[in-house]
């Protein structure tokens, strides 16, 4: 805290001597830890962390790493909910640590790596199976024939058709909240379907047929059990289950 900000804090603490200043409130982070060099199985470790009402969970994790235990390992990059690095299982649900506030999570917060992908260390998982499924739906513009000499134009309505699924940041929160993916990692998973949806319903794209063929298979959209875990987990608010249903409908009526 800077010196300039310090004096105004005094009168408030005098006015309410009963309540502790905000920065002294404590919370316990219970983190599922695993070090492949020492541990055979993951185990829980608890850390007392002081917090401010404006703190996000990522701030609390940084506090642990910087002040209590430097060996704690987790991914984070932008810390503003855009890069999609710090998806984790917080109190049993998948969230981005940088978007969820510490207050309101209870006195003890359970933090685990996202489920269904191999844990490499602490909160870091191997994302390769996730990206393999992502690559399999060919998430890039496919067009045949000559390249146009100007931009590929489309109307506002055509753009709006797939607007929701353009928001995906590939954090894997949806795929690793899916019970079908937990039990059988060969299911493509919600994120891959969302990114297929983004191109299937793009008027400029011509690869829908190939993507639909991939998603029509055994491990494709028909394995979705409509549990809505993915929609609930998405930090970008994408209606994932709806997108999957739209792909199902397009497959049924061959309209895409």
């Amino acid at each position, binding site marked *: 805290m800077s010196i300039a900000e310090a004096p105004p804090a005094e009168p408030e603490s005098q006015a309410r001597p009963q309540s502790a200043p905000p920065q002294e409130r404590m919370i316990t982070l219970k983190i599922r830890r695993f070090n492949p060099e020492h*541990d055979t199985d993951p185990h829980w470790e608890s850390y007392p962390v002081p917090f401010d009402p404006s703190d996000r969970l990522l701030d609390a994790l940084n506090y642990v790493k910087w002040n209590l235990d430097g060996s704690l390992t987790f991914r984070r990059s932008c810390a503003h909910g855009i890069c999609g690095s710090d998806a984790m299982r917080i109190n049993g649900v998948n969230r981005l640590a940088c978007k969820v506030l510490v207050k309101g999570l209870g006195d003890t917060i359970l933090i685990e790596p996202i489920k269904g992908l191999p844990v490499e260390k602490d909160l870091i998982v191997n994302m390769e*199976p996730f990206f393999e499924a992502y690559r399999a739906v060919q998430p890039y513009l496919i067009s045949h024939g000559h390249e146009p000499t100007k931009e590929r134009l489309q109307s506002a309505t055509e753009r709006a058709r797939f607007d929701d699924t353009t928001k995906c940041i590939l954090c894997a929160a949806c795929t690793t909240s899916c019970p*079908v993916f937990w039990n059988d990692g060969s299911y493509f998973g919600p994120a891959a379907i969302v990114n297929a949806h983004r191109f299937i319903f793009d008027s400029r794209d011509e690869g829908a047929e190939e993507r639909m063929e991939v998603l*029509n298979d055994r491990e494709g959209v*028909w394995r979705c059990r409509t549990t809505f875990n993915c929609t609930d987990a998405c930090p970008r608010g994408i209606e994932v289950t709806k997108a999957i249903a739209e792909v199902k409908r397009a*497959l049924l009526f061959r309209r895409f």
Partner: protein
Amino acid sequence: MSTDVENASVMSPHDAGPAEVIEAPRTTRRIGKRSRTNFEMYSWLFMRMSGLLLVILVLGHLLIMNVLDGGVNRLNFGFVAGRWASPFWQIWDLLQLVLAELHGTNGMRTIINDYSKNDVTRFWLKMLLYLSAGIVLGLGTLVIFSFNPNIGD
């Protein structure tokens, strides 16, 4: 732990020496290997359609057997014999049997696909399931069509 920093990343948990490079436990091995059939789509569609039909068939069945016209108290051999004398009720019951059994079997098939982790377990569980479905369908159909109302004579 070994002081050999270069090898640290490939040491096994018990320092038994460098671990072998093992395949990730959840490799998505089926990706790229496609069946190119619409089976899963039709199976999904069948669940919705048979479900809708079963609502009508089963609710109708329950209403006739348990509620209407004296309800369950009037049920006896003669009542069943009387109903199965009509092809309409034979077809109704056959549809009920086939749709319910296939709906249930398909549901179990997806559960087995979702939950069994071992290919061999998955195969044998499904074989057991199909066998049981075959027996129920066969026996049920046999009873509906070979029912003899004069069996007591």
